[in-house]
C-alpha cells in the first residue's frame, strides 16, 4: 500500500453514502477518484448524477485529513485494495457488480487458490454444525480453503472446520472489518485473520445493517469456485448466495436432509432444481479440477473408532443429531443406569457430547 498512490481511492471510500452502486456510476463520469476529488462544485452539478446531498457529502469529505485516516487504518492493521490495484483479487474482475474496493485484515486469497464457499442457517441444528465442520475439514485436507460470512451457526462451523485442517479460510463481512459481528465469534475472528482474512467493501467502522448482508453474499459467491449450502430453510438468506452463484456460473452443492425438516427444505429444493448432492468434501473436488490424492486424504478411513462391545452398542445408535436418553435406552434395551454409565465413559473418552441436557450425539 502506498499512500500517495491510493489516497484518492481511500478518500472516495470515505465520502458519506458512497456505496458501491453509486461509486460505479460516478466512475463512469469521472476517470478516477482523483478527478472526482479535483472537481469543482459546478462541475459536479453539471454531470447531473448527483443529488444536492451527494454534492454536499463530496465537498465535506474534502475537509478530511486523509493522512490521519491512513495512519489509523495501519494502526489497526487494516489494509486496503481497489480495482486497478495490484493486490486486488483477479477473480473479482470477471464480474460487473464486483466491489470497487475492499478493506481487509490478514491476507487476501491468491489468484490460483482454490476456494469453496459454504453458507447456511444461523439457527441450525447440531447435525448441521457437525456436517459443515466435517466437510470443511475434509476440504482443508485436500488443500481447499473455505470462504463464508462468519455468521453464527453454519458459517462459523465452516470456518472452524478449515482451521482445524490447517487450511486457509476467509470471511466476507457485512460490516466494517474492525467490527466483530457477532461478538461471541471474537476468537474465531482472530483465527481467521491469522489464517486468511476478514474482508469487507464497507469502510471500517460501518455498523452491521441488515441490507448489507445480502450484498456481502455476492462477494462470497464471486470468490468461490464452488458454493455449498448446509441447512437452509425455504426462502432463507443463504439462498441469496446461491442465486448469485448461479448468476456467476458456479457449481452449487447442497447437503440433503430429511423431507419435512424445515432446515432441509432449502437444500432439498436446490437439489431438486439441479444442485449437486453433497455428502462429503470430496464431492466438490471434481468441479474445482482436483482429481488426485483422493484416497489417502479420505478422513473416513482413519477415524474408525474402536470400542468395547458394550459401548459399541450404545455408540452405534448415536449420530450427529442429539438423541434423548430415553430413545437410547429403548433402542439398546439396556437399563438407564447402564446407558448412563456407558455414555459417561464415551463422553470422558471424547467420543460423545451432550450438547443439550440428556441429549447425546457423536462428537464427529
Amino acid at each position, binding site marked *: 500500500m502506498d499512500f500517495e498512490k491510493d489516497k484518492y481511492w481511500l478518500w472516495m471510500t470515505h465520502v458519506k453514502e458512497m456505496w458501491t452502486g453509486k461509486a460505479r456510476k460516478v466512475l463512469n463520469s469521472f476517470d478516477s477518484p482523483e478527478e472526482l476529488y479535483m472537481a469543482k462544485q459546478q462541475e459536479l452539478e453539471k454531470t447531473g448524477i448527483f443529488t444536492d446531498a451527494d454534492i454536499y457529502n463530496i465537498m465535506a469529505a474534502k475537509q478530511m485529513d486523509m493522512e490521519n485516516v491512513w495512519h489509523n487504518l495501519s494502526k489497526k492493521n487494516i489494509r486496503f485494495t481497489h480495482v486497478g490495484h495490484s493486490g486486488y483479487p483477479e477473480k473479482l474482475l470477471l464480474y460487473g457488480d464486483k466491489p470497487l474496493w475492499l478493506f481487509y485484515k490478514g491476507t487476501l486469497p491468491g489468484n490460483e487458490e482454490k476456494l469453496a464457499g459454504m453458507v447456511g442457517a*444461523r*439457527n*441450525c*441444528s*447440531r447435525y448441521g454444525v457437525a456436517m459443515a465442520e466435517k466437510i470443511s475439514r475434509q476440504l482443508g485436507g485436500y488443500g481447499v480453503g473455505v470462504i463464508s460470512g462468519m455468521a*453464527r*451457526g453454519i458459517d462459523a462451523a465452516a470456518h472452524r472446520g478449515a482451521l482445524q485442517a490447517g487450511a486457509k479460510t476467509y470471511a466476507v463481512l457485512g460490516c466494517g472489518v474492525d467490527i466483530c459481528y*457477532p461478538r*461471541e465469534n471474537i476468537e474465531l475472528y482472530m483465527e481467521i485473520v491469522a489464517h486468511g482474512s476478514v474482508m469487507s467493501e464497507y469502510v471500517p467502522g460501518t455498523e452491521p445493517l441488515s441490507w448489507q448482508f445480502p450484498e456481502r453474499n455476492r462477494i462470497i459467491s464471486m470468490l468461490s469456485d464452488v458454493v455449498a449450502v448446509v441447512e437452509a430453510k425455504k426462502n432463507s438468506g443463504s439462498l441469496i448466495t446461491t442465486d448469485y452463484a448461479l448468476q456467476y456460473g458456479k457449481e452449487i452443492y447442497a447437503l440433503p436432509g430429511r423431507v*419435512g*425438516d*424445515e*432446515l432441509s427444505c432449502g437444500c432439498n429444493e436446490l437439489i431438486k432444481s439441479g444442485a449437486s448432492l453433497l455428502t462429503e468434501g470430496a464431492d466438490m473436488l471434481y468441479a474445482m479440477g482436483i482429481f488426485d490424492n483422493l484416497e489417502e486424504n479420505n478422513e473416513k478411513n482413519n477415524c474408525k473408532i474402536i470400542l468395547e462391545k458394550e459401548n459399541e452398542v450404545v455408540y452405534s445408535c448415536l449420530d450427529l443429531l*442429539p438423541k*434423548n*436418553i*430415553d*430413545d437410547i*435406552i429403548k433402542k439398546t434395551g439396556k437399563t*438407564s*443406569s*447402564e446407558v*448412563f*454409565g456407558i*455414555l*459417561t*465413559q464415551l*463422553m*470422558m473418552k471424547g467420543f460423545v457430547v451432550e*450438547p*443439550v*441436557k*440428556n*441429549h447425546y450425539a457423536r462428537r464427529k
Partner: protein
Amino acid sequence: MYSKVYSTALRGVSMEIVSVETDVSDGLPSFEMVGLLNSEVREAKERVRSAIKNTGYLLPPKRITVSLSPADIRKEGSYFDLPIAVGILGSLGLINLKYYEEDILIAGELSLSGEVLSMNGVLPMILAAREKGIRRFIIPKKNAHEGAIVDDIEIYGVNNLREVVDFLNGGQIKAVEYVDFEKMYEEYFDGEDRDGDFSEINGQEVVKRAAEVAVAGMHHLLLVGSPGSGKSMIAKRIAGILPKPDMEECMEITKIHSIAGKLDGKAVKMTRPFRAPHHTTTDRALIGGGNNPKPGEITLAHKGVLFLDELAEFKRDVIDALRQPLEDGYVSISRVGGAYVFPANVMLVAATNPCKCGYYPDRNRCNCSEIQVKNYIGKISGPILDRIDICVNTPSVAMEELGRKGGESSKDIRERVEHARKCQIERYKNEKYKFNSEIPSSHMEKYCYLGVEEKKLMDMAYNTFGLSVRAYYKILRVARTIADLEDEEYIKESHIAEAIGYRTELI
C-alpha cells in the same frame, strides 16, 4: 353485669387464646371495645348490634364495654363477633350465667341477620385451648367436624345466634362425635386417595427414575423439557411417592391448612400437599409476609412438594427469597410484635422450557439462536440452581406411547423410597441432618467413601466436564442416594455414572 368467655386470635400459623370480657352498666349509652383491635374486629360492633336485633332482642340504652385480652396480642379476623354477642346477652341476663362457671370457647363471624359463618383454623385453635384447660367449644357448624379428632372435648356446631342462646339456656345440641385419628390413619392408607398415579405415565423412564432418586434423598429436582412433555404431570405425582406422612406430620399439615382455610371439608389432611404458585407470584405470596404476617405458598407446601413451573419466568428476587427457607426448613419474619416462624420443609420441584419458544433442540419448531437459548436458561437464578441436585430432561412423548399402559405404580416406587429413607435415618442417627442431600462437605469422606476405581471415575469426570467443587459434591450426594436405593453400602461406579447424568450444569 359482667361476663367472660374465651375466643381465639390468629397469629401467623398458630392460634392464641383470647378472653372476651363484657360489662354492661348504667350510664351514657355507648358501645366501647378495647384491646389492640384491627379494623375488622372494630367493625364487629355493627355486625353484633344488628345480629342481636335480628335474633329478636333489643339492646337497651346502656354503657357496654368489651375488652379483649391479653392486650399485647393484635386481634385479627372476625371470629370475635359471636363471643362478643354472647357476652353482651349474658351481661344483660338473657343467657343463663351458670354456664360461665365452666370455661367455654366461642368463635365465629356473624352475618347481620344473625347467621354464624364458617371460620378457618379450628384444629389449631382447639389444640391451643385444650392446653389451657378449655374443654367446651361453640363454633360454626360448617367447621365443627374439623375438631373431631381431638380427644376429651365437646364441640357444638351452631348455625345462628338463636341456637347459641337456646343452647346456653339449657337447650340440647348434639356434640360432634369423636373420630379416632389413629384408626382413621390406618384405614386411609388402605384406600389411596391421590392426585394421579405414576402408572399413568408412559415412557419417560429416566424422568421417573430421577424423580425416585430425588425423593429418596430429598434432593430438589429440576425438569427441563418442551411444553406438553408432561413436566407438571410428573411433578403432581411426586407428592405421592414421598413416604407416607406419619401422624405427627399429618397434624402439622392439617393445622397449616386449617388456618389457611384449605381443608376442603376434611377433618384431617393425610396427603402431602402439592402447591404450584404461578410464575407471576410475589415474594410475599411465596414466602409469606405482610404487616400481620401470613404464611406463603412454601408453608402451605410444608412436608410436601412446592412446584415452580416456568422457573425462568419467575422474577429473580422472588426466587432469591426462597434461598434461605430452603436451607433452613422454615421462614422467619420479624415484626415489631416479635418474630414469626412458619414451617417450610419442602421438596422443591422446578420445571423450565429449554428456550423461550420451548422446543429447542427441535429445529423444526425452534428458531431460537444458541445465544437466546443460553440467555433463557441463564435467567434462572444461580443461587437456586445451587440448591438443586438433580436435573433431568423430559422428552416429548411420541404418539404411539400415549395409548400404552404405563409402568410401576406410585405405591411400588414409594416402597423403595421408604427403604432408602430408612437407610439414611439409620446412617445419620447421630447427626443433625437426616438426608443425603444435607451431607455437609466436611462429612463427604465419612459418608460418601469412594474406592480406587470410583475415585478415578470422579476425578476424570471432574476434569472432563469442568465441574465446580459444588457440582462434584452434588454428584456424590446423589450417588449416595442411588446406592441406598440399591441397598449398597458403598457407592459404585454405576451409581456415579447415573448421578453424572443428572448433573445440573445446564449450559
